[in-house]
C-alpha cells in the first residue's frame, strides 16, 4: 500500500514523457494551420503546377494544353535569348550583391557612432527602402534620361554624359545602381545592428596590442559580423535575381538583350508571347539557379562564418 502510494507520488513529480494531451496538440495545429495552409496553397501547390506546365505546350487563350515532355527545356537551352538572359541576370545579381554589401557595410561603419544628428543620416539612407519601387524607378528614369538630371550635372563639370538607359554598355550598370540605392538602407540597418553587438572591449584589446583600425576591422569586426554578411548576401542575391519592376519601367529589357533578366524574359514569354508552358520552364530554371546559388552560399559558410548563432 505504502509502496503503491509512493509510486503514485513519483508519477506526479517526474515530468511525463507521454505526448501532450490532445487538447494542446489540436490547439497547436489550429494556430499553425493557417500559415501552413497558406504556404502549401500559395507556394507549394502553384510551384508544382509550374513544374507540370513546363512539360506542356499551353495556349492560355484557347485553353489547349498538350504534354510535350522535355521539349520546352531542350528549346530553352538552345534559345540564344535565354543564354543572353541568364548572363544579364548573373551580371546584374553580381553587381548588386557586391555594390550593395560594400556600400551597406561602409555606411553602417560610418553611421555606427554616437553624435548629434546621426539618426537623421540613418533615416535618409534608409528612406528609399520604404519608397514605392515604381516611384523610385520613374524618378531614376528622369535622372538618367539623355537630357536628365545626371547628364545636366555632368555638363556643369564639362563632361558629356551618355544615354545611360539606351546604351548597351551602361544600361545594366544603371539598373544595378537604381536597385542598390533602393535596397541598401535595409542591409545598412542589419549591419548597424550587427556592429553594435561587437563587444567594444575586444577592439580595444586589439588596439592595445598594436592593431591598426584597418587590421582591427578585417580581423575582428568582419569575422564577428560574418553571420549578418551571410544573411544579407543570401537575401540580396535572391532579391536581385527576382528583379522586375525597374527593368519593365526603365529599359524594357533592352537595349538588345542587355537587361533582359530572367524574370522579365519569363514575363514577356508568358504574357506577351502567350507561351505559358515555355515560360514555366524558364521559371523552373530560375528557381534552380536561385536554389543553387543559395545552397552554395549556405554551404560555403563553414569556411568563413565562425560565429554562427
Amino acid at each position, binding site marked *: 500500500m505504502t509502496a503503491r502510494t509512493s509510486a503514485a507520488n513519483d508519477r506526479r513529480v517526474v515530468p511525463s514523457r507521454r505526448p501532450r*494531451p*490532445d*487538447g*494542446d496538440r*489540436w*490547439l497547436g*495545429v*489550429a494556430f499553425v*494551420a*493557417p500559415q501552413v*495552409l497558406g504556404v502549401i*496553397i500559395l507556394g507549394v501547390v502553384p510551384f508544382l503546377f509550374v513544374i507540370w506546365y513546363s512539360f506542356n505546350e499551353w*495556349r*492560355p*487563350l*484557347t*485553353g489547349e494544353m498538350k504534354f510535350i515532355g522535355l521539349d520546352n527545356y531542350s528549346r530553352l537551352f538552345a534559345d540564344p*535569348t535565354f543564354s543572353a538572359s541568364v548572363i544579364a541576370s548573373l551580371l546584374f545579381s553580381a553587381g548588386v550583391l557586391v555594390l550593395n554589401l560594400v556600400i551597406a557595410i561602409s555606411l553602417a561603419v560610418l553611421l555606427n557612432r554616437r553624435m548629434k544628428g546621426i539618426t537623421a543620416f540613418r533615416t535618409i539612407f534608409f528612406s528609399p527602402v520604404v519608397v514605392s519601387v515604381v516611384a523610385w524607378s520613374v524618378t531614376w*528614369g528622369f535622372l*538618367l*534620361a*539623355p537630357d*536628365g538630371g545626371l547628364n545636366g550635372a555632368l555638363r556643369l563639370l564639362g563632361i558629356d554624359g551618355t*544615354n*545611360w*538607359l*539606351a*546604351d*548597351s554598355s551602361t*544600361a545594366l550598370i544603371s539598373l544595378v545602381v537604381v536597385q542598390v540605392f533602393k535596397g541598401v538602407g535595409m542591409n545598412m540597418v542589419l549591419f548597424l545592428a550587427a556592429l553594435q553587438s561587437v563587444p567594444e572591449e575586444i577592439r580595444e584589446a586589439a588596439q592595445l596590442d598594436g592593431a591598426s583600425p584597418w587590421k582591427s576591422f578585417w580581423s575582428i569586426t568582419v569575422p564577428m559580423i560574418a553571420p549578418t554578411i551571410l544573411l544579407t548576401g543570401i537575401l540580396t542575391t535572391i532579391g536581385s535575381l527576382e528583379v522586375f519592376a525597374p527593368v*519593365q*519601367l*526603365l*529599359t*524594357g*529589357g*533592352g*537595349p*538588345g*538583350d542587355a537587361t*533582359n533578366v530572367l524574370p522579365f524574359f519569363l*514575363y*514577356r514569354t508568358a*504574357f*506577351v*508571347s*502567350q*507561351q*505559358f508552358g515555355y515560360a514555366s520552364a524558364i521559371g523552373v530554371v530560375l528557381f534552380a539557379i536561385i536554389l543553387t546559388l543559395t545552397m552554395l552560399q549556405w554551404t560555403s559558410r563553414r569556411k568563413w562564418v565562425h560565429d554562427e548563432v
Partner: protein
Amino acid sequence: MRATRYRGAAIALTGVLAVSLSACAGGDTDASGPADLKMALWSSNEGHLALLKKIGDAYVAEHGDEVTSITFEPVTNPDYIAGLTTQIAGGDVPDLAWIPEASGPEFVDSGILHDVRDTLKDTEGYDLDDILPAALAPWQDDKGGVYAYPFSNSPFALYINEDLLAKAGQPDVKSLVGTPNYTWETITDIAAATNSKTGAVGLNVPTFNPTNWSAVTMLGNAWGAAPWSEDGATCEFASPGMIDYLTWYQKQMSRGAIPAVSGNAAPAAFASGDVAFSIAQLSQSGSLDDSFEWSFLPLPAGPKGYHPIVGQAGVSVLERSKHQKQAAGFLAYLTNPTNAELLAQFFPPPRQSLLNVKTLSKAAPKLSPEEIQSAIIDVVPEAKVKPQHPVLSQFSDKVRAGLDPVWSGGDVKAAVTGICEQISPTLKG
C-alpha cells in the same frame, strides 16, 4: 471535453479557409437560361463606361428573358492583353472583350473569337454592308466569318503646336497641306529648327517606346516599307525601303528633330505644350485645352507618296464564353447604327453612314469641320490598318531587341538583317 472543443475549433478554421478558397475559385453558371454577361474593356474612362452602361441597361430592359445583367469590367493591367490572358487562363472568361488591332489576326487565327457574321446579318436594321470593307477585313477569315466589330477606326494624324512654331519663327504648316511641300522632310526640318531654337521636342510619337516599336515602323509605308510581306510569310525589315526609312529616322534623332530614345520611357506629351509635332489619333484632342494654339492635320507624304494609317479596336464575343448566343445578340445591339452613332462620340466609327462632320464633331468638339474632313473623313476610306501578323506575339520581342541598335545610332542594315534572320523561321511557320 477540452480536446473535443479544440478539435472542433481546428476543423472549423480549416473549413472557413476551404470555403473562402472555393469562393475565390468562382463557380459555373447555367448557359441555357438568361445570362449575366461580362465584357472586358481596355478603357476605364468614366465617359466610356457610362455610355456602355446606358446601352447595356437598355438592352437588358428590352431582352430581360435573354440577359439579366451586363457588367463592363476594365482590365486594369498596364498591358491589357497580359491582363486579359491571365484572366482567361484563370478560368474567368468574359463573354465579350475589347480587342486591340495588334492582337486581332492572332485572335482570329487561333479560334479564340466567335463568328458573329450570321447574327449581325440576321439582325433587323443592322446593315453589315455599311461597315467599311477595309475596316472589317482584319477581323474576317478566308470564309468571310466576322469575328469583331471594329468600333474604333481612328486614323493617325499630325498635331501641331502653332504657338511654339511661331515662337521659333517657323512657317505656317497649315498652308503647306495639299501642296507638294507637305512632306516628312519639310516637317522634320521645321521640327529640328524648333528644337534648336527653343529646346522643345520637335516631333514625337507618344505611344512609342522600344517595346511598342510598331508605332514607328508603321510610318515606313510612306517610304514603301513594310515589316513583312502581304501574306506575312516573308520578313521585309531588310528591304531597301525599310532601311531608307530607318536611316532617315536615325538621322532625325541625331539632328534633334525627333527625341532620342530613353530606355523604355514614353515620350513627352503634346499636351505639355513643349512638343512641336505629335503623331496621334483623334482621341488625343480631348486632353488638349486652350493653353496654346494647335491644329490637327493629315500625315505628310514620304518619298513614296501619301499613305494614311488607322489604328483599330474591335469588340468580340469569345469562343469560350458560356453564353455565346446572348453575347452575340448584345454585340449586334451595341453596334447597330443607332448605338454606333452613340459610340462615335468617343470612337471614330467604321460605318460609312456615320463618316460625316456632324457625327465626328461629337467625338472631337475641339476640331474644326475642315480638320475633321481633311484628317479623318477624307482619309479613312483609303487608310490601311497598322501592320498586323497572326503570330506577332511570338516574334515581337525579337524585333524589339533587334531594333535597339537603330534607336542608339547603330548600323541600320546590320540590325534589320539580324531581325530577319531571327524572325524568318517564325514567319514561315
